[in-house]
């Protein structure tokens, strides 16, 4: 066991500049989280490609990592975001397929009384539709906030934007998503942070 494995991300990345193997520690720490996030957006095969490319790009650029940053996740999610952007066709196709799956289930469901599961399916279809209709930069913010486990500040770091911009994009994305869901209620709309 190398000491790198028990050190912070910055120390591990610093070590990997001389000892490539240390980079495996970064993979072991974050592959699962990055893969899950990419998988949700891109589906199985493309998610694997995106995550592999993310780690390889991160490794190539490890000399540029700001060692003042203890947590490598914003850096990695930033690279992953770009890798996902390159695969936007796959992402769009995924949402389209998920949207159709939702409709099909819902229609079938009406015949024998709508139950919770069916309505959940329909909701998912509508959500997929909504995600597909978002501007890419709004979708990145929304999904990083919802699915990556990063804080607003970390999302800002990830996308290299201001926290205020994170909030405004998130606000806009939620508004659009809500429209897609066909809800007219404005009740908790303004609690958007």
């Amino acid at each position, binding site marked *: 066991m190398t000491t790198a494995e028990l050190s912070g991300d910055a120390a591990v990345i610093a070590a990997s500049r001389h000892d*490539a193997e240390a980079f495996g520690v970064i993979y072991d720490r974050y592959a699962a989280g990055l893969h899950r996030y990419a998988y949700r957006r891109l589906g199985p095969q493309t998610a694997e490609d995106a995550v592999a490319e993310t780690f390889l790009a991160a490794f190539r650029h490890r000399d540029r990592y700001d060692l003042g940053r203890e947590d490598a996740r914003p850096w990695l999610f930033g690279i992953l975001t770009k890798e996902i952007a390159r695969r936007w066709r796959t992402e769009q196709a995924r949402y389209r397929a998920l949207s159709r799956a939702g409709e099909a289930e819902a229609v079938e469901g009406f015949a024998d009384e709508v139950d919770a599961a069916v309505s959940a399916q329909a909701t998912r279809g509508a959500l997929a539709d909504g995600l597909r209709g978002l501007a890419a930069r709004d979708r990145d913010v929304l999904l990083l906030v919802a699915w990556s486990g990063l804080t607003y500040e970390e999302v800002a770091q990830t996308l290299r934007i201001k926290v205020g911009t994170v909030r405004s994009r998130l606000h806009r994305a939620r508004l659009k998503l809500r429209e897609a869901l066909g809800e007219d209620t404005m009740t908790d709309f303004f609690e958007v942070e």
Partner: protein
Amino acid sequence: MDEMTMLDDFGAALDPDGPPPRDLRRRVLTGVMRPQPVWRRMLTGRTGMRVAVGGGLAAVLTAAVLAAQVVPFGGSGPAAQAQAADILAGAAEQARHQPDVPVRGDQFVHVESVATVLGMNEATKQSSTAVIARRVWLSVDGTRDGLIQQRPRSGGDWTDTALPGCHGGVVTQTKGGVTVTNACTPTPAYRGGLPTDADAMLAHLYRIADEQPNKNPRDQRAFTAAVDLVAEAYLSPASLAAVFGAVARIPGVSVVGDVTDEAGRDGVAVALHEVQGTRAELIFDRDSHAYLGNRSVALQDGDGLRAGQVMYSAAVLTVEIVDRAGV
């Protein structure tokens, strides 16, 4: 339910079934380490990334650079390939006469070896040589804590490297009071059920080759798979014989000539030229044809190497099945 909660549920419904595929890790790390020579795979061990190259080796750097001592014979082409086949047939025959040791999952494969490793600082391209003695205890079923010990062959203290086992799907590593837990799949040091005839073993080697995510030629990947199977490992006599029988059928495998192995024994090397400009060698006892170890030799100048320079050389001294890790 607001849309962020719905998005949570939606996301959970889209989740993969489990952790990222193991292939993905291999793909990434192969990319990171490319090209990944035999000695590096051996040092990193069967357990992935965690064997310290830095700690054990950095401490024992010497200025010596050794050149491959080969007394070539047999020329090249079909003759050299035929001679290789003879040596490998002898090695297989020799392997078949080894004791067939019963192996239990809770035991350890214990291997003692000596090695010379040419280290390369990837940033500065400066090379350095480590001359080490090495002993490992590898968990048979991969669930027990194994151990690697290395020290300079000139003497000194053993440097321990823990190899935490994967127990119940979890590997726990502790150092300096800090404990890190990761999901894992056990990596058995010994697998029963490997093919016992050369044909099936050859198919097995190419199957492993096809799983490797690199772009090396298929024959080279199969040879690499064979080296990985026999280096620092225990195989049943029949399977070990099958490996040597299979290697004889990999196109391009030929005899190199007489060598002195890392432990000073008279050997003969059978090898494959690799596209990286290196030669991967299996070394056998010159008389009995028993397997002695393996080497990797640079064939051309470049990347901080000179033609003929030995990048890695290991000689196996003992292989045993033991009940516990450590001395």
